[in-house]
């Protein structure tokens, strides 16, 4: 298999398989989670200002008092790389084109140099966060294989995409094929790992906020 055949495979059957597994996993898990249901709380609801699902969705996006000082890397680095990923995935011209081809929606793109800058900043933030995870004894103790694995699976598409556009290490064709392959691995891993938080994040925050709001506790 030469590199053009490899690229064509990743753009064809590879993408087909990855999107298939992604859809299967996402629908399976979403339906399973949201049909679990919970016992009805028969206690009379207590009303407190700021205690509701919606409040919690927003409140948990901000660090609780004092936490930003205690672990600045987690908050600042976390924000930077999540926003960076969103910019790269949703505002890079080739990515928009892929989305347009898959679901028919499209919107204007940012210049490729800006996307390149976003990739560098994102990778820097991710590397700092990895170093922090290795350095802090508590974080390291709490880390499992899944944490290291999902970090790598998220990092690789950014790295290979950036290297492809900058013509580093390998010829563009091979690097582009590796980039698409790494993104496909991310698609396959996402529904079955903690990366699924992309789908459950706001739902679970709402749920926690709602349950506690019923008890009159603004969390």
């Amino acid at each position: 298999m030469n590199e053009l055949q490899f690229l064509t495979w990743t753009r064809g059957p590879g993408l087909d398989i990855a999107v298939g597994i992604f859809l299967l996993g996402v629908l399976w898990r979403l339906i399973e989670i949201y049909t679990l249901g919970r016992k009805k709380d028969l206690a009379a609801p207590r009303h407190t200002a700021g205690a509701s699902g919606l409040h919690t969705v927003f409140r948990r996006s901000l660090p609780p008092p004092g936490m930003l000082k205690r672990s600045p890397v987690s908050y600042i680095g976390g924000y930077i790389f999540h926003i960076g990923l969103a910019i790269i995935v949703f505002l890079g011209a080739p990515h928009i084109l892929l989305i347009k081809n898959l679901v028919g929606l499209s919107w204007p793109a940012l210049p490729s140099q800006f996307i390149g800058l976003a990739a560098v900043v994102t990778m820097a933030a991710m590397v700092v966060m990895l170093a922090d995870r290795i350095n802090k004894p508590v974080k390291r103790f709490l880390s499992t294989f899944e944490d290291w694995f999902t970090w790598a699976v998220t990092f690789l598409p950014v790295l290979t995409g950036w290297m492809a556009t900058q013509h580093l290490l390998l010829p563009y064709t091979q690097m582009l094929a590796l980039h698409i392959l790494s993104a496909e691995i991310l698609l396959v891993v996402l529904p079955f790992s903690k990366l699924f938080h992309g789908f459950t994040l706001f739902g679970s925050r709402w749920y926690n906020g709602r349950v506690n709001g019923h008890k009159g506790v603004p969390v």
Partner: protein
Amino acid sequence: MQGPLIDTLARRGVTRRTFLKYCATLASMMALPPTAGRAMAEAMSAARRPSVIWLPFQECTGCTESITRSHSPTIEGMIFDMISLDYQETLMAAAGHQAEEALHTAMKDNAGKYLLIVDGSIPLGQDGAYSCIGGRSNVDILKEAAQGAAAVIAVGSCASFGGIPKANPNPTGAVSVSDLVKDKPIVNIPGCPPIPVVMTGVLAHYLTFGSLPELDDKGRPKSFYGDTIHDRCYRRPFYDQGKFAKTFDDEGARQGWCLFELGCKGPVTHNACATVKWNGGTSWPVESGHGCLGCSEPDFWDGGSFYKALSAPADPLKFAAVAAVVGAGAGVAVSVANRVKKSAAKATHETTTLADLEK
């Protein structure tokens, strides 16, 4: 043709100055030092006239057309005067047995010294019966001719990589020259067709230095195939700015914006079109408003639609709908199982009273 090449060129109205300029341009295109232009001019005008045998196999004659007619009347065409083209079916006057005799005479007289040019792929299916010349299969002729060759030049994508005849499902079992010839130096000059100056550049290099130019991992001269079309494209700034033509006749297309979204394969195609251009430097595909097809890359024919962007799926998704249904089905099944478990637990639940605890 008799006498030095420079005399012949002079008879055809090509001045010494023009010829020197041509050699200097050729040398600079091949990334050779400035002095090489002069060396080329000297070597070519003195003209040792090496024998060249040109074998056409499963091809469309487009490569020959490209080289002989693109800049007519051309210096490129006249460069053929500096070689002794002893066998070329399209160009030679002889036919039938006379042609075969010319081939065998050239092979015998110049054994070990002639350059073998091949265009077209070689079919291996049905013992090579898909393409025969004078009752002999292409594979037989190639093996015999390659034995006595100093080097083999595979002209065009078919000879270099199998090209269109090798496209899926490859009914004739077509292969490239390098699939069959293993013990001779081979230069691949892919393209459908290849750029004339690339071919004459390789010939001039061979005549001047007695060796073949530096090649990349696919056997292509690095000086011509070192960069991608995309990297050398004059529309590249529009790519970087995110300005794309969406259709072939929209405002973007009229403004000359990037053709990436219309399926241009420039980013993955190594060739010199963007710098050398075609038809005497007049234009080239992207300049005329059409994206690059990627014709100088192996198996370009099977690389998905010419009109689909590189970042778009090569084929329509086949599993997505089925996978979504299976996923939803699995979700519903698991949720039903969970509910059954929950109601079973509820049904078997026994209420504990104070009396029970005091037992």
